[in-house]
């Protein structure tokens, strides 16, 4: 099993090394990076490329670690027993499997994505240490141990909202997706919009990197925003000429796809205004 990137996903060399090492050593891969640099996409595309079934576990602030293993629905059982349902006699009818259980018992080696692990409670990663390390857990209600037939490939994404505990980090490989350079960005655009007009891309990239360079932006636009913007530009059939720094135009057309904050729009308008004054008339 080797991951080499896919048609729709441009993987840099270092990312490939990290993914392949994680696959080979059967350890979780922790992926961090600016929002919109394709952390979740990586897992989806990797699963596609490796032909592994993808099991997604999206974490919310209320998610508990045990929910990933199993849940015992005591209320349902109580109700059934009062109604005289025969099912109530067997406790296993009320055990709901979690995503980890699914991953452990998958017939082919699956790829488990634990998305945005930092959203959960601070103790969440610690509660999963043993399970991720030994790839097994114990179900008290059934009195049996669930053990992974083959260790699933595990990818974990984080947005840095909370620090992850050291003990957890020590068990993972780590990769930080840095913001793509222009060359990589072109490859990414080509992968998403094959045959896009080069002139449009050139102009759009210039505008895009200029916006990113603007000091003090609250939310810098990232890859996914650039792709959205390009899509809009293409569907509206905007002439590349209009993107060129036009002294009479303050901000790029359809900027709503790039700047997500009214303070940022204002800031950028101000910067553009200053730039316009500096231009020779």
């Amino acid at each position: 099993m080797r991951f080499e990137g896919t048609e729709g996903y441009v993987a840099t060399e270092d990312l490939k090394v990290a993914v392949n090492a994680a696959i080979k050593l059967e350890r979780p891969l922790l992926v961090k990076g600016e929002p919109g640099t394709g952390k979740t996409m990586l897992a989806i595309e990797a699963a596609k490329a490796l032909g592994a079934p993808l099991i997604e576990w999206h974490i919310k602030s209320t998610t508990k670690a045990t929910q990933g293993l199993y849940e015992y629905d005591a209320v349902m059982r109580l109700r059934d027993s009062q109604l005289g349902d025969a099912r109530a006699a067997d406790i296993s009818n009320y055990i709901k499997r979690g995503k980890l259980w699914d991953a452990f018992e998958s017939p082919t080696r699956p790829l488990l994505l634990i998305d945005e692990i930092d959203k959960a409670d601070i103790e969440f990663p610690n509660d999963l240490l043993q399970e991720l390390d030994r790839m097994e857990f114990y179900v008290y209600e059934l009195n049996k141990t669930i053990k992974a037939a083959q260790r699933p490939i595990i990818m974990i994404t984080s947005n840095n909202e909370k620090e992850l505990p050291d003990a957890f980090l020590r068990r993972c490989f780590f990769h930080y997706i840095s913001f793509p350079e222009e060359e990589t960005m072109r490859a990414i655009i080509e992968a998403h919009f094959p045959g896009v007009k080069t002139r449009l891309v050139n102009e759009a990239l210039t505008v895009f990197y200029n916006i990113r360079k603007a000091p003090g932006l609250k939310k810098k636009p990232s890859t996914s925003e650039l792709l959205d913007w390009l899509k809009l530009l293409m569907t509206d059939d905007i002439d590349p000429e209009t993107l060129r720094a036009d002294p009479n135009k303050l901000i790029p057309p359809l900027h709503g796809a790039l700047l997500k904050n009214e303070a940022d729009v204002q800031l950028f308008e101000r910067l553009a205004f200053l730039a316009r004054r500096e231009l020779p008339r």
Partner: protein
Amino acid sequence: MFQRFFTELRAARVPVSLKEYLMLIEALEKDAIPSNVTDFYYLSRAALVKDERHLDKFDRVFGHVFKGIENTGEAIEADIPEEWLKALTERFLSEEEKAKIEALGGWEKLMETLKERLEEQKARHEGGNKWIGTGGTSPFGHSGYNPEGIRIGGKGRHGRAVKVWDKREYKNLDDSVELGVRNIKVALRRLRKFARAGAPDELDLDGTIAKSAREGYLDIVLRPERRNAVKVLLLLDVGGSMDSHIELCQELFSAARTEFKHLEFFYFHNCLYESVWKDNRRRSNERTMTWDIMHKYPGDYRVVFVGDATMSPYEITHAGGSVDHWNEEAGALWLQRMTHVYERMVWLNPTSEAHWEGTPSIGVIQKIIGPQRMFPLTIAGLDGAMRELSR
């Protein structure tokens, strides 16, 4: 070789443990990686570094430890665009010099020779310098034809010639450097103390079950919502020497504002005296007496001073030392009173820690509030400050 790498990483304060080291060895044993230095760099980075803040330190140590064994098998490609050179020639060379080029055999010949030279150079020092021929006699280099010095480099040889770890792309992820609103928020979160206070309007399920079981009928129990109960008093130095740190302070302020429900802020100039103010535009007529603050906000408030503490020491130690007005009592006295009322207090200083020694007034303030209470305004410093406050 790897052990030295490991110890040097630890010495550079990259938190690597034996477990990670063994993981790297295991990866190498399983031959997860071809024998290529760049790939080894990527692999060791993925295995040893677990936080982007440490990437820059890691890059530096890697470059240092593995110096000299790079470039086993990676060819250096120097593609200097011909048009670029030509354009330069058009711009800088005089007619006479152009004639000389012609004498050498014209452009094509020149480019050919250049390629040869490049080959030679590659053989001589493997991946060494960034510039091609900075010497004197060569026609390619900064003192060749042109009196103003045409340099070959930069534009032509980017990318592969510079080793990846030497690029130090992760420089600004180092935690002693960058500070943004988001990072500050993460640091401020340390200061969370949740407590349930106020009107009971949330269903307490466990309580309800317990109570119902005890009473024998359904008895619903409500409880107040969980809230961050930490109270913070933020005192900010404005004007004068603080102007250069204004952006940093704004970020800190906006982060603190959303993070704490009970946040009070006041401004002062250079040192705390008998009054402070809330609105900078009306600082001359709307002032709050410092005594009132100490009476109004009880001792369970946590006090955060933000200021560069850079001034003349007299402004702290002597009555009448203030640069703005005549103060009856010395700033030092006011600071002391604050330390008596508020047990938990820190001073965040935006000037870099390296300059603290050389500024006497910083030493004076440290002495008054206690030396362990002043922290630099970096993520690491903020972290330490919050730890101090939540003790």
